[in-house]
Every structure is written in C-alpha cells, then in structure tokens.
C-alpha cells in the first residue's frame, strides 16, 4: 500500500483549524527553517488510508489471537460505550473537584475492587502500563526499606523464567538483579532461593501462575523465605487472569502488586489503548504510594489520576462480570488452555507436561532437530490461516518455545479450528519442511528479513529517495 506521504498532493489538505490570527512571537532561533512536510489529503483519502492500514493488521476483532502472556481477550463494546459518555469524556483534571464527583466515584470504586481481587489494602491508578506499575511498586519497596534505615537491601531476586520487564524495572529503580534458576518443573528452586535471600535482599519479583503457565505450589514457602530474610514480595499481575476471583496474591504472601487493565480487565492493547498498570500494596506500605496525601509518598509517577477512560472501561468490565463472572472467566481461561494443550500434546511436546493454568508452552526442539522446521516457521505458517501466532522463543528457559494463551473469550469451535490448523501445520512440517521456510504466502507482506532489519534499521522516511 502507499504511505500517507505518497497519497499527498500540495494544497489538497483539509482545513479544520481556523487561520492563526495572532502574531508569531517566537525568537528566530526557535523557528523551523523549512516548513514541516505534513501530508496533504482530502478526508476521503485520509479515511481510505486508515481503512487500508486496518486491513493489513490483525486484531482480536479479526480472529484468534493466542499470544501467550499477553491475555488478548475480547474488549467488550459496553466498555467503549461507558468510556464515551460525555460526563467522562468532557472533563478536565484541574476542574473543581465538586464537579467531578462521578469520576472520582469511578476511580475509588475501581481501586476498591482491584484491592479486593488482589488482596491488597491500597491502590494507585497512576501507572500507565505494566512495567510502569512494576517500577512504581519497586520504588515503594525501596522507600519502605529506606524509611527503616535498612539501606543495605540493594538486590531484587528474579527467577530466570521471568518477564524481561522484571529485571529491567529493578535496574531502573536502582537495584541489582539476582537471577535464580527454575527447578525441573519450571517453578522456583527453593534451595536457590534460600541461598539468594539474605540481608541484602530488598525483595522478590514473581508471577504466579508463572511464565510457563504453572501455579507454583510452593508459593507460601517462597514468600515466607523472602520475608524471613527481611525482603518484600512483589507480584507481577501479568498472569492474574488465571486466578482472578479465586486466589489472591495478598493471601499468598505478596506485599506489592501491579495489575494490567489491558490484559486481565479487557481494556484494549496498543492502538485503542493506552495501557494501565495500577499498583497496589498492603496497608503498611500504603503511605509510600504515589498520588497519596502522605509525606512518605514516593511522589507522582504520572500526571493526575492515570489513564482515566481506560479505568472506566476496566470498571465496566468488573461490574458487568460481577462476583460470579470474574472467577468464571478465570476458570474458562484455564479450561480453554488445557483443552488445547491436551489436544496438541501428542504431536507438539509440552515443555512441562502437566495441568496448566491459562497458558501452556510447547517446545519444538525435536521438530527442529528432525526436520529443520523451527518455532518461527510454525508461527509464520499460522499467519496464512488468519491466526495470530503464539508468543515465540519465550520463556527463554524453553528451547524453540511457542507459548499459547487462548483466553476465556473464544468459543469451542474456534479452539477446535485452531487445533486442526496446528495439526495440519505439523503434518506439512514433516512432509515438506523446505516449503515451511517460505511461509506465509497470503499475507500483505511475506517473510520479512528480520536480521537485516535489526542490523541495518531504516526508520526514517526519505522524501528524496
């Protein structure tokens, strides 16, 4: 398709803004020398441009999207409807508080419900993404230790299967990262944890269910070991969808959490987003939270109350599902994952062949060894069937990993069709391994040269090229 710049013709733009009728007062040094090369298109062309772009992408609205660890569930229309109510849209964060009572009720109610679901006592809605929530939670942990003059606690323990954001957030917050290995079942190695947890431990970061989709049966022992060493326990809510309304991080011994509204609570990822990663904590940490009227607060991590309209959508989701619907969604997410896992396990070896939670990890190492067909080839093959590929090559502890998270919002027919496709692709891989390297054939672009793109990235449009 043409780029928007290539559809442009001089003088053909739309004129929605009135002519500027105030003199420009910027000093010459601050003015641009050449005018911006903005594309000039009539509205019909703009519309076609975006419709064309939409046609070249794949979203949950287009088809199955089992991207492991991302919880690509359906985003209900009622959320959008609630978030477009004029009373929520036409507000300004600086307007008189008395005139925003309804909006404040939304945020307070959401904080309260998220506390109930996670087993926490206090919550901030400020963080604008999951990793931002992690960063906030880690600053809270840091402020807590500092408030007790316990300044030798400089290390955060992270299992080797963790999401990359965990060590990254810990480093951003000024901690050193201690990576501990997983045991043969993909769970935390207790002996390694006992060895790592000591007087320099600020805390542990963990997802549960963990990154291979398993609920760690030793969770109470894990949090006890960290607490006895004087550290705090951080719950990464990436995988909360599997347990919401059934088990609570607070009851497992976690002190701080973040949740991803754009995963677990059905607000859109990316495009229609933005994201939102509220952070919560137990009451003894509440004075350190951002946005709270407390001298010990770490300060604001974002302006005002966070991404408010996303919060409206998440509240709409929780209220529509209710006390029965939230755990039912979690149960169905787990059921769907196990249904697919069992129907694929005979040809796609599971990295951990046991009952999983909301997602499962396959290892294609044997297939690659025998046929040369890699996890990447299988993932690319799916594109031709209109399915978004699963997460590839993650977690890092599983070779040739494909990580599948169907979510609860898919029908049994969709799952059966996906299973049929996975099996058909496997058959192709065995019969015609060479052909697999050429796939996909029917997508807007074919196999991209990721290596050249990474080694020699061209990220600027060149008007003269």
């Amino acid at each position, binding site marked *: 398709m043409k780029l928007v710049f290539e559809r442009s013709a001089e003088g053909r733009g739309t004129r929605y803004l009135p002519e500027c009728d105030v003199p420009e007062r910027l000093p010459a040094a601050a003015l641009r020398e050449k005018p911006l090369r903005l594309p000039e298109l009539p509205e019909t062309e703009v519309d076609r441009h975006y419709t064309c772009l939409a046609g070249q992408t794949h979203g949950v609205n287009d088809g199955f999207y089992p991207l492991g660890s991302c919880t690509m569930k359906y985003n209900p229309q009622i959320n959008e409807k609630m978030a477009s109510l004029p009373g929520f849209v036409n507000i300004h964060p600086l307007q008189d508080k008395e005139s925003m009572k309804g909006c404040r009720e939304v945020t307070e109610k959401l904080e309260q419900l998220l506390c109930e679901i996670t087993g926490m006592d206090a919550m901030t809605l400020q963080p604008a993404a999951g990793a931002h929530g992690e960063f906030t939670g880690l600053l809270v942990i840091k402020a807590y230790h500092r408030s007790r003059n316990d300044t030798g606690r400089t290390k955060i323990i992270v299992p080797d299967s963790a999401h990359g954001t965990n060590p990254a957030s810990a480093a951003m917050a000024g901690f050193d990262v201690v990576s501990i290995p997983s045991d043969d079942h993909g769970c935390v190695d207790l002996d390694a944890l006992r060895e790592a947890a000591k007087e320099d431990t600020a805390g542990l970061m963990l997802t549960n269910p963990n990154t291979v989709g398993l609920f760690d049966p030793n969770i109470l022992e894990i949090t006890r070991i960290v607490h006895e060493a004087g550290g705090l326990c951080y719950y990464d809510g990436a995988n909360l969808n599997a347990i919401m309304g059934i088990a609570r991080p607070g009851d497992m011994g976690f002190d701080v959490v973040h949740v991803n509204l754009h995963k677990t609570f059905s607000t859109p990822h990316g495009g229609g987003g933005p994201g939102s990663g509220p952070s919560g904590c137990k009451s003894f940490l509440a004075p350190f939270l951002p946005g709270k009227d407390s001298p010990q607060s770490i300060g604001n991590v974002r302006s005002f109350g966070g991404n408010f309209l996303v919060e409206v959508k998440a509240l709409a989701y929780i209220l529509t599902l209710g006390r029965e619907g939230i755990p039912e969604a979690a149960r169905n997410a787990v059921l769907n994952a196990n249904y697919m896992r069992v129907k694929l396990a005979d040809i796609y070896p599971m990295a951990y062949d046991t009952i999983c939670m909301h997602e499962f990890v396959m290892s294609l190492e044997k297939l690659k060894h025998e046929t040369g067909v890699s996890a990447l080839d299988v993932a690319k093959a799916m594109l031709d069937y209109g399915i978004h590929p699963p997460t590839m090559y993650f977690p890092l502890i599983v070779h040739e990993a494909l990580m599948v998270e169907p979510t609860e919002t898919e029908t049994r027919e969709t799952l059966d069709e996906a299973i049929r496709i996975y099996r058909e692709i496997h058959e192709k891989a065995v019969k015609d391994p060479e052909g697999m390297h050429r796939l996909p054939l029917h997508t807007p672009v074919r196999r991209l040269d990721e290596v050249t793109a*990474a*080694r020699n990235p061209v990220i600027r449009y060149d008007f003269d090229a």
Partner: protein
Amino acid sequence: MYFPEELKYSKTHEWVRFEDETTAYIGITDYAQDQLGDLVYVNLPEEGEETAAGEPFADVESVKAVSDVISPVTGTIEEVHSDLADEPQMMNQAPYEAWFIKVRDISETEELMTREEYEKFIAEEA
C-alpha cells in the same frame, strides 16, 4: 557443529583460548551462536575494566533474545574486539575468530571443560 581441540569451554557456552597461564581470549561457542540464531547486536565492555569469573561482561542480542556473556575468568580486559559491534554476523559465521575480549593478569578461572567434555555436556543439555 565444530569445537576446536585447543580451546576450553564453560557451562554457559563461552570458549577460552589461553595464550599463557594468565592471558586468554574469550568468545561464544558454535553451539551458543546456533541456539541464539542470527546475532544483530553486541554490547562490549571497555578496555581496562575488570572481569570476574561467573559474572557477565557483555551481552548479545539476536532476533530471538538478549543474552549475557559470562566471563569464565577473573582478570583485566586488555583488548576489546570492537569490530564485532559493526559486524555482529562474525559471531555466527566464525565464532572462534569472533573473540570478544583479551584478558590479562588472570587470577581465577572457573571450572572449564575440554572439547570432549563440552560435546558430552551439550548432548545432555539438548
């Protein structure tokens, strides 16, 4: 896959070529580059920095993942192979010529394997 006889190998898939008892070149093995896939970026240390046995001294990035490169020895970095930064494909094409660092004043060395031991080790790991 090829593992030269004259090199020593670590459990984290680095190779070491000793010039003498306290000087060595370090790189990643053929197995490591094969597992990582096409390498697109390397983050190298500075000359004069210290390395510690068992601690990372560099990281490499492939289209799949980012990985630490662990130093099998404790010593001082005498030379850094800065060409690798411009030509990361060297690590894929010629892993034993694509050394990362030359270390001098080596005071401590991790337990290293011979070619035969390393081949056995990766066969068990796979």
